[in-house]
């Protein structure tokens, strides 16, 4: 009698051939290994890909908009709104700066304070689309003077995050909206109510505050920089009748996912002391 043997088959490997999916998996793991072992080489290789993707994305946006006048007007409107927000934030920042400088008038400016005013301009190489990782890969690294802990500013001098990893040519910035970030800032018309701001991911932030505090939708939220600088606006106040406090939902002053360049500045110990975030040796 002829006996039939059952061939034991593996989903990944078989005696006849290796699944191409398995090979792709090994390839991707190797790529991840390259990023961990030689991050600078990895980012130098992938930076042109990200730049091409960015150009294509902008080009397609413009192409789609050119099909109708309404879309063009919407784009122009969007641009004007962001410009207006930036100017408004810059104005707020200048008001705060005047107040801080007035206090310093009697004391001469130290060399370290002068250095705080000048920054390093860096292009945003990659930004994840709204995702759990609110981070930027920036085109400036240790070779241009970027160091861990520098504060990251967007258009209009709005603080948006902190440098968390640096390689020779690139650096990574973690945004205030990243889930691990905790910033001690202020809220109110005169930035006089201290609050703790928590990153919620996807560009959003939140804070808890006593119910008795006089806070309304539209109030500006400030973070430490040189003085106190506006980082967002209260868009919603969640109130639970059984809880003693309220939760503020904060929208960032700048849309972090449309920023193309940033400025990096060393804002000193006051800023780093106001932050609480995890550190890692992995760039």
């Amino acid at each position, binding site marked *: 009698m002829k006996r039939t043997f059952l061939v034991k088959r593996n989903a990944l490997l078989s005696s006849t051939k290796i699944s191409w999916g398995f090979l792709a998996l090994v390839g991707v793991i190797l790529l991840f290994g390259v990023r961990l072992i030689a991050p600078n080489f990895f980012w130098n290789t992938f930076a042109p890909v990200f730049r091409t993707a960015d150009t294509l994305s902008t080009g397609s946006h413009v192409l789609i908009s050119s099909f109708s006048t309404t879309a063009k007007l919407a784009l122009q409107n969007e641009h004007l709104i962001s410009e207006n927000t930036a100017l408004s934030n810059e104005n707020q920042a200048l008001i705060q700066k005047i107040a801080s400088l007035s206090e310093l008038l009697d004391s001469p400016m130290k060399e370290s304070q002068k250095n705080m005013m000048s920054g390093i301009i860096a292009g945003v190489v990659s930004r*994840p689309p709204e995702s759990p990782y609110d981070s930027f890969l920036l085109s400036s690294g240790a070779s241009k003077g970027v160091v861990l802990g520098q504060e990251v500013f967007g258009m209009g001098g709005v603080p948006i995050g902190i440098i968390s990893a640096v390689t020779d040519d690139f650096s990574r910035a973690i945004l205030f909206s990243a889930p*691990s970030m905790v910033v001690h800032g202020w809220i109110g018309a005169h930035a006089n109510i201290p609050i703790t701001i928590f990153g919620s991911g996807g560009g959003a932030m939140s804070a808890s505050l006593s119910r008795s505090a006089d806070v309304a939708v539209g109030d500006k939220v400030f973070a430490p920089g040189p003085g106190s600088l506006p980082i967002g606006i209260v868009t919603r106040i969640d109130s639970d009748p059984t809880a003693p406090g309220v939760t503020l939902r904060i929208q960032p002053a700048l849309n972090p996912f449309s920023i193309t360049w940033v400025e990096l500045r060393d804002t000193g110990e006051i800023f780093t002391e106001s932050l609480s975030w995890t550190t890692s040796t992995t760039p």
Partner: protein
Amino acid sequence: MIRVLLIGTTFVSVVLFPWPLTVFLVFASSVFEPLIPLIVGIFADTLYYAPQVYAVPLYTLYGMILTGTVFFVRSRLRASTMRE
């Protein structure tokens, strides 16, 4: 040909397109190759993972869960005892 095009677009979409489209493409590609969610997850984490934000690479984790689910569904769908 469609299979290669779909899987290729899935990888490109990690860099180029918004994440909901990538998720859709990953679901579609996993019909052809169950390991695709895991591979795309690791690829996305290679590009975007920031250990300062999360201790665990989330995209890889999601990919692992989806790949496990796809393998499970495929094993259930293989109702016949006859093998090639």
